[in-house]
């Protein structure tokens, strides 16, 4: 059955874990160096723009992880292979943390630029809604006792969430044009100068590596839990 195949790959990757974590750390430190020391402050926002280097990658990965989650739910419906559920279940908490980081750093960044901790900016609001979707998905696994049922329900929920992201995006943007005072749009990435692009890309790469490491760890945990479950049955 499919179940055996990925096991071998994941056991293989498991041995690479320490190296993977190390490279993530190195890339992260390089990214930090570039974003803090080696890039000019923005002419308008000054140094507070450096928060962008950790806010924007977190937002990208938050959305990226949810798309991955929803994609594995769709694949589970099509191929009925239990592994896809494990993928979705492993990525969910990581994606939720990235969304949380994006929210917190976004509001910290907002303080100097708009003077308030929270502004109903279109992207921040969508990020907040995305956080709700993550919490809903994670809670499905906890509150439904019978695990086969929980797998089916959470898969359905993942897909529902995914269908709703464009709808929510569309309505929040439209709503934003209705109430949007002009100044707030400044939070959108300021005119990216080449010297600012490099730290952003390095940090994004570091985030992706970190996501991969955590995903691998979470997946291994889920697979072991499956084995323990099956062993006790």
């Amino acid at each position: 059955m499919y179940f055996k195949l990925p096991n071998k790959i994941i056991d293989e990757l498991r041995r690479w874990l320490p190296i993977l974590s190390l490279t993530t750390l190195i890339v992260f430190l390089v990214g930090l160096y570039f974003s803090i020391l080696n890039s000019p402050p923005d002419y308008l926002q000054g140094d507070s723009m450096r928060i962008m280097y950790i806010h924007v990658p977190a937002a990208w990965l938050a959305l990226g992880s949810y798309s991955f989650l929803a994609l594995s739910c769709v694949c589970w419906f099509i191929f009925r292979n239990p592994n896809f559920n494990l993928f979705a279940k492993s990525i969910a908490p990581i994606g939720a943390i990235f969304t949380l980081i994006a929210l917190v750093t976004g509001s910290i960044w907002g303080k100097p630029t708009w003077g308030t901790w929270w502004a109903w900016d279109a992207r921040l609001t969508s990020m907040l809604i995305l956080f709700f979707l993550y919490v809903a998905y994670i809670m499905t696994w906890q509150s439904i006792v019978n695990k086969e049922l929980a797998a089916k329900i959470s898969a359905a929920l993942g897909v529902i969430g995914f269908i709703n992201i464009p709808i929510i995006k569309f309505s929040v943007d439209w709503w934003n044009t209705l109430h949007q005072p002009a100044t707030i749009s400044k939070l959108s990435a300021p005119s990216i100068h080449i010297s600012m692009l490099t730290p952003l890309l390095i940090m994004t790469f570091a985030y992706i590596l970190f996501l991969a490491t955590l995903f691998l760890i979470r997946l291994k945990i889920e697979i072991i839990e499956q084995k323990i479950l099956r062993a006790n049955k």
Partner: protein
Amino acid sequence: MISDLFYMNGYGVYVWSAYFFTLISFIILYYYYYSSLLKKEQELKNLQLKNE
């Protein structure tokens, strides 16, 4: 040099608090999941030993 690195002409407190929050959550996340992975692997090993 060092002092203005922290001061960052006024924005330092925001920049550093944001970075601090991100780094701390990364470290906690990594540590929590890595330790629970080791715990789970240990549990599996004991289970397999018990079954033989």
